């Protein structure tokens, strides 16, 4: 019984300590974001790594989601003759929910993992310690560019994803299922507000920060050789995906 209690207590403290460490890591990152020197070259490289290289994945996910959404809602709406509402469903769910969440998950899987693996390898091969000896702050040199790049790029990737998803829904709804194109567009536009788009993009900024933060944190705190790198990579993907889904609920509740 006592053993069991001890186990529970130690697990809880471990989780709390881990959370505290993540928050401290975030605060440090934010602090280093605002002070000189800025490594613009690194930022740009990370933007390419995280943003540009994720474009195909994000676009594929978004377009197929939009198309499936149109197809599925058509079967449902047809039962009570409300096919004209497909446009509304696709555009609202892409802007408010699926655009940011799916982009977040995709980038977490692609870029978050590579971030953790890269930094983890640098940690176990003591390259990060070497940076210290070269009077270079690894937080500024490695973490800040990745964090900023994933936050900024997530915003633009999400905007692209939303648009492409809506376009995919339009293609299926109008060209494949043959609903009225004018009604489809009117229904999409009339029932979507500018704030819907903005709330989706605010979410995407938070998700971008989560991916960058968790990827860097896991990589930075890797221990124990090649196995540790593997664990860090898995952990980064799992934790950031879970955080994205949990935060998604709270952001949705908070924003509207």
């Amino acid at each position, binding site marked *: 019984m006592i053993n069991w209690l001890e186990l529970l207590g130690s697990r809880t403290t471990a989780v709390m300590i881990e959370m505290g460490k993540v928050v401290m890591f975030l605060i440090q990152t934010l602090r280093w974001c605002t002070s000189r020197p800025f490594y613009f070259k690194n930022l740009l490289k990370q933007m*390419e790594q995280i943003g540009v290289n994720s474009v195909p994945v994000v676009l594929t996910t978004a377009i197929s989601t939009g198309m499936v959404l149109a197809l599925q809602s058509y079967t449902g709406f047809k039962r009570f003759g409300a096919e004209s509402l497909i446009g509304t469903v696709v555009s609202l769910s892409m802007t408010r929910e699926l655009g940011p969440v799916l982009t977040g998950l995709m980038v977490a899987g692609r870029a978050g993992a590579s971030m953790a693996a890269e930094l983890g390898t640098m940690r176990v091969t003591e390259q990060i310690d070497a940076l210290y000896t070269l009077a270079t702050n690894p937080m500024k040199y490695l973490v800040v560019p990745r964090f900023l790049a994933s936050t900024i790029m997530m915003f633009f*990737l999400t905007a692209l994803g939303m648009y492409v998803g809506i376009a995919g829904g339009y293609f299926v709804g109008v060209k494949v299922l043959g609903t009225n194109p004018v009604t489809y567009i009117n229904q999409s536009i009339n029932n979507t507000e500018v704030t819907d*788009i*903005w709330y989706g993009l605010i979410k995407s900024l938070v998700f971008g920060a989560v991916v960058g933060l968790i990827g860097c944190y896991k990589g930075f705190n890797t221990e124990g050789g090649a196995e540790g790198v593997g664990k860090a990579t898995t952990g980064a993907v799992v934790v950031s995906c879970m955080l994205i889904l949990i935060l998604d609920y709270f952001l949705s509740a908070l924003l509207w």
Partner: protein
Amino acid sequence: MAKLSAEAKVGLLVLGGSVILLYMTFAVGKYEFGAKKGYVVEATFDSVAGLDDKAAVRMAGVKIGTVEKVVLEDSRAKLVLRIDPGVKIARGSEAGVKTMGLLGDKFVEINPRRKTEYGAESPEQSAFYREGERIETTTSPSDVDKLVSQLSGIADDIKQVTASLRQVFGTERGARSMEDILADLRGTTSNIREFSYALRSDGSELVMRLNELATNLNGVVNDNRDNLKVTLENAREASRSAELALASIENVTKKIDRGEGTLGKLVSDDSMYNNIDSAAKGISDYTSRIERMKTIVAFRSEYMFPQSKTYFTLELKPKPDKYYILEVASDPYAKYTRSEVVTTPPGTTTVSETYEDRLRFSVEFAKRWGNLALRMGLIESRGGIGADYFAFDDRVKFSLDAWNFSSTEPGNLNTHMKASLNYTINKLLLLNAGYDNFLNSDRAAAFVGVGLRFDDDDLKYLLGSVPVPK
């Protein structure tokens, strides 16, 4: 094709994302700018059953306007309808609240009066509704609950009637009295039969008497023939003089109509009416311009580590999409002086650089399309341009400014660019943050600011009373 550099790829992604974002917000946004088009009519309903602002107004199923406002007036719903210009609603048309399909949106349907019924009731009323008038006949949407309760009331009534009928006929007494009625009827018809028999036998005498009466009447008319003739002649005379009088009246009215004589001028000459009308229109135009103009006064201070910069802004908005910005800013880096002093021992020079605090002036003209506004004019006493992007009902504003394109100041040679994010907390407080002069790395600085911003009504009347030469 040359391989794209990393920079170019990132730039392309950012540009593509921004363009798509701008396009989406424009497509989705419902912006109405400038003077609102069309004219306004009102209609009151007992109930509008959850009709909202911006609902469509339709005639024969075609959209002809929108519901501008729904307000409560004397426990009834008053709708202000904005009708598209060029659409005429015949006087006496009927307005009703309808639902599109079973689950669809609510809208206002205008049932026009048929063409044969057109035409003004009285000369001062036009055949169509004009600005500000009220559609008299309205039908509120049929309330299903009310309909059901009415129907059940009717059913109750019918039940009562049938119940009393049953009471009359169903009982033994009822049957007996029915029998009595039938017996009476039988008696009456036999009486009628008897009467007709009697008439047939005594009829010839009745006809003879009628003949006699006719002969007597003829005699009376023959005796008075002369008198009748005189009477008729008098009547003819009277009608002729009435005709003459009417002709002279017609003459006078024709003259008035043609504009002859003073009365005629007053009645027929349009110019006086036109003069008065245009004068009144001019006055109302001027006052409505002042009325429409929004005057916004703002005061804010930006702290840019370690210096601070204070702004006083006056925005004049004659139209929401076209406005003027006047701004005075105290700039800590306004005047730059660099002096070299040759000191002893000779050969060594001390360079001293000082900045003086000065006021800088901005005068900008801004034009807004949707949620994007472009500005140009003087920014901080130099030529410049700027752009604003608005979001969240204009509470958030992202601005990018560029000015001082030809600077010669050392260390500040590049164009002064400033990016800032403004957030209006409520009607009074505003916060902003941004990055100032980021093209000049020596002078680049992040800043945070706080300020007050409010709509000043008194100021606009003060400005309005100043005569403006046209």
